[in-house]
């Protein structure tokens, strides 16, 4: 049944809506202000700068689509970076996601005390910041690096392998390190999702004819934890494109023949070393749209699972 208030509200639209819930808007205002100034505004500024030539120290010069033309048609390194990023993202994104999910699913099966401990163990590489540098020691290029030393002792190799500077090894290694670190916040969200499902659903499922664990997984667990999966996915997608520090710090900047060059690395190359912020902005804008596209694609996919 409609009340009197409902009708004029729809008609008067926006202003009236503001008036009605003004208290909520006031409460959300401080955050929105900060969000707008430090997140929304920079995105637009980046968009504008991407149409200019801008070296920070001098004023920007409008060049139209020149940066984009260069980026798509004239930048071989960018092409390589796109290829690398796709490979990197394919492995670390979906694979990291699936691994996180499987791990959290597996952990859920073990007794409670051990559960917390295992979660901690899996989660720890991603909170400890720069701990990945131990990979630098393991795969150090001299004969005393752990990997080289072990392989040489076993007589598999006779000369040390320059792991992080050898083109053939860079990509596999940074993918391994990234996977090792991928049990991050997304993983925790999944753990939370799984442990919050009421056991009643499984009992009900068993009565209704669920026959094995996989059916439980597809018909109960995944649909029940859809919001958590969504959160994890959003985090995973942004991280698979934005993660370049690991690659950069282990392989050097830029890596040998750009073998470990990611779009993000390309971006920081143009910001930090070449100081061509216009061009860098063009790369950032591109990356931004790719991420948005992937997010919405994944949302659609997720809605189909278990539906």
């Amino acid at each position, binding site marked *: 049944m409609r009340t009197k208030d409902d009708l004029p509200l729809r008609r008067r639209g926006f202003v009236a809506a503001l008036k009605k819930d003004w208290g909520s808007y006031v409460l959300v205002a401080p955050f929105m202000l900060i969000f707008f100034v430090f997140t929304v505004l920079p995105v637009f500024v980046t968009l504008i700068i991407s149409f200019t030539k801008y070296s920070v120290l001098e004023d920007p010069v409008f060049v139209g689509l020149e940066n984009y033309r260069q980026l798509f048609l004239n930048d071989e390194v960018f092409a390589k970076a796109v290829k690398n990023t796709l490979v990197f993202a394919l492995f670390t994104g979906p694979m990291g996601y699936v691994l996180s999910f499987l791990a959290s699913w597996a952990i859920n099966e073990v007794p409670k005390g051990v559960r917390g401990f295992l979660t901690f163990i899996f989660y720890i590489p991603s909170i400890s910041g720069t701990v990945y540098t131990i990979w630098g020691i393991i795969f150090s290029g001299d004969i005393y690096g752990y990997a080289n030393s072990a392989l040489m002792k076993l007589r598999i190799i006779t000369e040390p392998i320059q792991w992080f*500077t050898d083109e053939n090894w860079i990509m596999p290694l940074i993918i391994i390190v990234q996977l090792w670190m991928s049990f991050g916040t997304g993983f925790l969200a999944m753990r939370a999702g799984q442990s919050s499902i009421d056991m009643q659903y499984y009992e009900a499922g068993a009565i209704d004819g669920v026959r094995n664990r996989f059916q439980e997984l597809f018909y109960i667990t995944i649909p029940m934890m859809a919001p958590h999966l969504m959160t994890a996915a959003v985090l995973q997608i942004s991280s698979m494109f934005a993660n370049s520090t690991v690659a950069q710090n*282990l392989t050097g900047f830029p*890596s040998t023949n750009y073998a470990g060059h990611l779009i993000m690395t390309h971006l920081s190359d143009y910001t930090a070393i070449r100081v061509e912020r216009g061009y860098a902005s063009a790369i950032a804008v591109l990356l931004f749209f790719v991420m948005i596209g992937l997010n919405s694609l994944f949302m659609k996919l997720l809605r189909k699972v278990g539906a």
Partner: protein
Amino acid sequence: MGKRTGAGILTLAMLCNLILLPVGALAEPVTAEQTVQTGTADGESGYRAIDYDVYLGEYSAAARPDTSVSVAVTEFTASETAGAYVEATLDGRENVLVTGNDGEVTWRFTVQEEGLYNVNLVYYPVEGKGATIERSLLLDGKLPFEQARTLSFLRVWKDEGEKRYDSAGNEFRRNQVEAPEWVETTVSSLNNYMDEPLSFYLTAGVHTLTFQSVSEPLAIAELTFCQARRAPTYAEAYAAYQAEGYKQVGTATAQAKVQGEDSLKKSSASLYGLSDRSSPANETYSLTKSVLNTIGGTGWQYQGDWIEWEVYAEEAGLYKLAIRAKQDYKSGSFSTRSLELNGSIPFAEVQGMRFSYNRNWQLLVPADEKGEPYLFYLNEGKNTVRMQVMVGEHSEVLRLVSRSVTELSGVATKITMLTGSFPDTLRDYELKETLPEIFTVFEEQMAQLDKAGELLMAYSGEKGETSAALDEMQILLELFLEDARIIPKELSNFKDNISALAAWLLTASEQPLLVDYLTFLPPEAELPRADATFWEKMVAEVKAFFLSFVTDYNNIANVDGETAKNGEVELWLAGNSGRDQATSIKNLADNYFTPGHGVRLNIRLVDMDVLLRAVSADQGPDVAIFQGQSTPINYALRSALQDLTAFDDLAEVLPRFDDSALVPLTLGDSLYGLPEQQTFLMQFYRKDVMADLGVSVPETWTEFYALIPIMQNNNLRIGLPTPFSVSSGGSATQLNGLYNTLLYQNDLDIFTENGDSCLLGQLDAIEVFVQWAELYTKYKLDKTINITDYFRTGEAPLVIAEYTTYNTLSVSAPEIKGLWGMAPLPGIRQEDGSIRRDTGSAITSVIMFANAEDKDASWEFMKWWTSTEAQTLYGREIEAMQGVSARYPTANLESMQQLAWPTEISKALNAQWEYVQGVPEVAGGYYVGRNIDNAIKSVVNEGKNAREIILDYVDDINKEIANKRKEFGME
């Protein structure tokens, strides 16, 4: 390059080896009785002299005659370079001999009675570069033992002027200045872990004594062979007190007290007042201000370093002593100090005062076993007290372990030379037959380490981390003796253990101690409290926490009363260069810059990432220092920097630097900064290992190539700078140092004159690139190598590295002190016979921004900062604070000569500096380092053809340069 010469030398080296080994093998069984004897006869035979302990062992039966032999110091013969002369008077002494920092001085003297003598020396630390004075002592033309190679003679320092405070009331650390005086000492070694002075064995008859200069000048007044004076026991001293009729001081209030920070003199510039807030019971304690209330700490931990204070006693008589100190540095261990009162040790019991580990402040009262405090006699008025770092009871353990390290490293090298770094674990090397002598060494070292372990147990009463390294080595040696076949398998483990032992030695010999005050009290008086109570500390901490909200710790405040009549300069320096650096620059500027120029300096420590943003927002500094090689031109191309040619007196400033240092700062006719540091490559070599191999340091590349097979046949390595400028975490903007060395030596340039294209693709340059790559591909030299580790073990006796590697080596590898040297790079012999040794260099610089507010004031600062005076002062300051590891590689040529480099090193550096070139910076120049890096990686890692690949990369470079030139409108 003659293959035949190489082969010839190679055979020779192998022959040498063949001859050397059996000699070692024979030498051992003879001295079965003296366990420490063996092992020295081989391996170290070439360059190293015998160890002091062995030397003493040999003459253990010799007499210690009471006669003394005076050496007439003014009757000497000197080598040409020694610069020795007789000075009529010097600080109150007549007819003294002054020796320079180079060459050698020899005296003849006659001994009547055969036996062991100490050497008593009266010396004067003549002003030099402020470094420790070092001499080698030769008897009859040769080193009597290894420890005589570097004898150190300490200088005398003091705080300059009065205490100083800034406008906020924070106390400033005062500058350290020399206060030279005549010092009487019995010659002892400061790096043999022994407190007793050195003894020399002399037969009756005529001998010669030679002092070889290692560093710094030294004046000598007296030199006597005699027996060192022995301090009386407390019982004897007490009897003497009674004989003199000295009375215990009765007045309960009488007290002779001195604060630690108020020292009179000290042996090192690193011994200055420190600020300690760990206890509110510290004398002079402030929550808001920084006060210097203690002295010592980790700056006061090396054998021989002393601090002297002056105490004032109202009343003459006998006092007890209390020292408030803290030793919370070395858990499970203690620091040892000896005490001197009015110039002599009052009694032997205070030669080894122990300060045990405790997290709280302690009050140490020297006392006998029954707890009865020792009494000291003070004169009425001024008395001097001196405390000196001693090795104390650690001595025996340290000496045992130190010898083990030397012996076992010798064995490790020997095994490596036979089996290589990675022995074939499946092969039996028959070590029992090929190297039988090593097993005797193992047995002896087992016994030595066992003894050392027992002694350690006795001190600390527990088995802790302190003895872990010892235990592990013992287990390993036991295994080796049981089954020789596992030695190759455990070789790297064995080497790791040796390094662990060496590292343990280094830390175990350090004896830090923080001192708050010393006080002499009447024997009946009550002792002051050692530390504050828990509640007092808590209240202080809570107060400090709240005060931290209102106190600004970051601003390096100004000295009161300095007027800035001629303006102010805002200076930024990178946060990673550290607070010590900032304070020290501020300190120097306040003392030497502001007063003369009337310009005040404001320093801020910032993260250099901020610099670009700050400059673009016009919030930047006026001047920034410690800027990397490529920064100035990068900013200059974007018109952010001030061109220094605008200043008329620029021409007066430029001669301070080598022309090469200006190259990276030059763009066309403009100059965008002044250089402050300049570094380049040098050769480092192990004298002992090279001597054993019978080879010398290569002068030319031909010699260098001939050396490679010799080294490799002995399973030794040559360390080159890595060809990859981008290794883990790095970023390649510079051209590889070894590559540019080869280019410059072949008279090739990297860029065209105006910087519009890169010349590395030209025919000659391609050949150089191939030559560089072949060092790693054809000659199989290591692509990455940990220079310090390989060099200290002798596995890589020849290394090419930045000259600042000297700093690292002298700090982290003290066990090879005196056994290594530095030489100019190998070069190419020219037609006239000279050798061209060119190499590129890297600089840091000081720059002024185009929007600097007060350009004249900024320019004044830049001129002052790069001046000889400021650079030398800064270099010495920072070295005093942080030790040799922070030796400053200044670009100022005159200042370079004034920094504390040993004479031999300084000569080598100067020789190389004549050939140093500057690497120009051009628009898009960062692309060169990167592409060459990729090129060499493709060749070295992937085996691609060097000649083909380099052209592609150079094309790429030229494209980028063209792009950038277009961007900057330079076409």
